[in-house]
């Protein structure tokens, strides 16, 4: 699979510091996004620690990949999924311990949404209310579930989706890295197809921009970095109440196909834009 990716982060219009952190590791096709929390500058510390820990762990071939950090690894998981999930456990531990060691950092935490693409296999690990979306055949599908109080209330039928959007409790999370010494992580695997578009983003985007708008932007703008810029601009137009971070990953086709010359003109244009803007 040919992968083209890009990402952006923005302060937004209201906050004075950016507590989001993201990383694209192109050679590994690893994408990590984290939204930190905890007053002063500690949210930044937490999200950066999360991203650093995960990237370092996934890049280190010597790091525990067998899953000794996992209490109950799913037997069907690939090595990448196990490694990514182990990395998230380690990140949780590191943030928790840092907060314990430094009283002023007590209460810091972070969301974490990470994607690792190996061939056509996509591994996702997720904690918190950042999101991973897949746009396939014009349909935008949220891959992750928000670990927030309002999302849980919607799942239980206590709130409707509209009431959740209006709720003042939107920022209350049920799970985040660094809150407890042990954490439950959502991990899953999917098969990717040519022309799939994966997007990771924090709630600073999804609270300001609707899903049809996200789908429309991803379809209209072939360059991942420019699409991320456009989505951020839209979130800022609407008020930009929080930091906004977006990672976009486009999956190209492996083979050209027998009749690809028919569409070559259009493809060439799209591919050219993609490589120029990718990070």
């Amino acid at each position, binding site marked *: 699979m040919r992968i083209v990716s890009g990402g952006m982060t923005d302060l937004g219009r209201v906050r004075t510091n950016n507590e989001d952190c993201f990383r694209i590791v192109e050679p590994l096709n690893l994408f990590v996004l984290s*939204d930190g*929390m905890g*007053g002063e500058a500690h*949210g930044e510390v937490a999200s950066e620690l999360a991203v650093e820990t995960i990237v370092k762990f996934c890049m280190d071939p010597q790091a525990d990949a067998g899953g000794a950090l996992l209490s109950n690894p799913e037997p069907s998981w690939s090595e990448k999924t196990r490694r990514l999930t182990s990395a998230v456990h380690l990140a949780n531990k590191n943030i928790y311990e840092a907060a314990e060691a430094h009283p002023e950092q007590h209460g810091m*935490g972070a969301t974490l949404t990470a994607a690792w693409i190996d061939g*056509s296999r996509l591994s996702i690990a997720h904690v918190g209310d950042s999101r991973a979306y*897949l746009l*396939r*055949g*014009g*349909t935008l*599908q*949220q*891959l992750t*579930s928000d670990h927030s*109080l309002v999302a*849980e*209330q*919607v*799942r*239980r*039928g*206590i*709130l*409707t*989706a*509209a*009431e959740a959007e*209006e709720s*003042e*409790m*939107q*920022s*209350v*999370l*049920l*799970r*985040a890295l660094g*809150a*407890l010494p042990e954490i439950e992580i959502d991990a*899953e695997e*999917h*098969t990717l*197809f*040519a022309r799939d578009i994966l997007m990771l983003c924090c709630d600073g985007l999804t609270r300001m921009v*609707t899903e*049809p*708008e996200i*789908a*429309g932007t991803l379809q209209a703008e072939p360059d991942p970095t420019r699409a991320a810029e456009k989505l951020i601009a839209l979130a800022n137009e609407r008020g930009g109440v929080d930091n906004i971070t977006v990672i976009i990953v486009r999956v190209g086709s492996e083979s050209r196909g027998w009749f690809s010359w028919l569409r070559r003109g259009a493809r060439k244009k799209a591919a050219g834009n993609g490589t120029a803007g990718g990070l």
Partner: protein
Amino acid sequence: MAKLSLMFDEKTVKEVPVGSRPVSIGRSPDNDLPVDNLAVSNYHARVYFEGGRLVVEDLDSLNGTFVNDLRVERATLHDGDSIWIGKHHIKVDASGDAPVPWDTGRKASAPRINETMVLDTKARRDMLQQAAASGERMQFASGRLKVPTLVVLGGRTDQKEYMITNKLTVIGKSAMATVKLKGWFKPAMAAQINQRDDGYYIGPGDKMPLVNGKPITGPVRLNDGDVIEVGGARMNFVYRE
């Protein structure tokens, strides 16, 4: 109260409020919002409140309903959205919002929380219980687990029956598709079935699938017994116990 304004050439042609009754839009003059244009179907679309959300639903119109340039079957509307029908567009003013029967007393007592915070296990249990006690709309899962299944009625596929166990299921010729279509000139990814919180949705891939004989353009929720036709295969979507 929410309001729809029919626009043509940047001029407001007509305004209608959206109350508890759906607003019908179409070429026929008996619609709440008649749009006189040949590209518009007699009964083209309707807009209504559902659980506090303002929703637009296309009524199988010939030329489709678009929300902010995206063709939709059904979509939640937000303040400032535009619904496009033919050359006309309808501005959505949802600022007044719905007749939502929501406990305002509780809302007022909840502190405004701007900073993200995490609940510890106990606080989270208490909060959910409290919410459940006052929310009343708690839904309980039915006793038995029902597995969504595709039963092949016709066409060439690699199996006669498929249990849908993944969040994302692809129907197509691709070696990686869950439901593999066989034969010449089949699309690699003909259609997809995705799991969401409230059920399973079928969406187009390279082909526009038919559900119960009708073509679908966007994600459509599958009901027990629906018949799907795509890439020469006919399948029955059923929930098995």
